[in-house]
């Protein structure tokens, strides 16, 4: 059985385990429902206004920059593995790649995408 087959089994077990651990709690727990109990917590008073307000745009900017850097790592990891064998040319080439990225980060920084407003 391959290593990845084992991982697949583990994934299924990890999905089932939380469900199994909820079962004894379902059998043991008391049930005394009341409408007051189900009100979402808000310092002990009734909730005011809507919960689903507009998402703050600042979070979205960080997510955008993150995607750029996350995709870059997909390119960098294979390079890092074969780094020793590829020679000086690969080193120089990756420096160009990193420099372009650093430039992008500097641009985002300059434009104020990294500061919390």
């Amino acid at each position: 059985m391959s290593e990845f087959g084992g991982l697949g089994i583990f994934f299924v077990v990890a999905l089932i385990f939380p469900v199994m651990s909820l079962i004894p709690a379902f059998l043991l727990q008391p049930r005394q429902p009341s409408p007051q109990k189900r009100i979402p917590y808000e310092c002990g008073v009734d909730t005011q206004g809507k919960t689903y307000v507009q998402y703050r745009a600042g979070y979205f900017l960080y997510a955008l920059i993150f995607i750029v850097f996350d995709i870059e790592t997909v390119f960098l990891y294979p390079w890092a593995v074969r780094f020793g064998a590829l020679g000086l040319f690969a080193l120089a080439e990756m420096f160009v790649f990193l420099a372009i990225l650093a430039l992008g980060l500097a641009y985002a920084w300059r434009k104020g995408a990294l500061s919390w407003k």
Partner: protein
Amino acid sequence: MNAMLENGVVATVAGVLREYLMLLFGNQFLTDLIMKFIGIGAVIGVILSAAIVFTYAERKVCAFIQVRLGPNRVGGRFGLLQPFADMLKLMSKEDIIPAGCDRVVWALSPMLLFVPSALAYAFFPFDKGAVFADVNVGVFLLIAISSQAVLPFLMGGYASNSKYAMIGGMRTVAQMLSYEAPMVFSLLGIVMLTGSLKMSDIVAVQADNVWFVLLQPVAFVIFVITATAETNRTPFDLVEGESEIVAGAFAEYSGMRWALFFLAEYANLLAVSILTTTFFLGGWSGPVLPGVVWFWLKALFMVFFFMWLRWTLPRTRIDQMLSLSWKVLLPLALANVMCTGIGVYIYRWL
């Protein structure tokens, strides 16, 4: 006894067990399958016992730092049975579903959170030859799986129909995404020095040469800081800050569902400690004592270190936290990759 030290205690025991199973069933596939299930059982056992030990240890460490006694009533003078009392309490609590929540997403969130925290353990080299899945893309797959923990947090925060949970969910996304970039970059230097993504290779290289904390000190510091942020612990616990947004994404969960969040949290704490040990502190390598003992000594020291941080430092503000990641740690990690590249060539040239 010598052979046992040579091959690692856990691997030797597993080998003996496999031989017995082979004699019993005489079928290679069935034996492999049962061995996989034993491995999964062992890993989940590690996670559960970690949660039990750490809930107690955290209170005792916290009490020690704040010059208090900590739990001292249940189970003798040292309150040793406290975690079991907690477990019973959580099991017998009523399951309250908040009004107006998105039932399916709300219920799925704690269950899905357990999956990435548990799956990460499949890649850890607990001892020489004792890795559940020693795949050739280990580090990469580990990062890919463990970064999925963001989604359940956002689901829980969004579906709870509570303003605190909503804020907590949004903060989780900003924090975990921001700190993942420098974390991933800080590990690049190690991969460059090892030339392999296999977790067992990374430890083997350190066992033969020196620990990577000496070769990559900057990466070590970046990794420890980002690991604290990824596990949502103080000074980066804005995601669940008890005193400002009452536990954030899991404010509306009670009983066993809440316990699942807690289980995942302590599983993550142990996971980042093990990762620090594996990547920087030489994993199971060490003199005289068997590998397993060294491994747990180092890992538990890192757990203590993270607890120490939590009870010593105050919480940061969100703008400070985000600018630390993007303006300090990320450029530093990029520079570290470049310096490692140049350093390796200078070392060869000499």
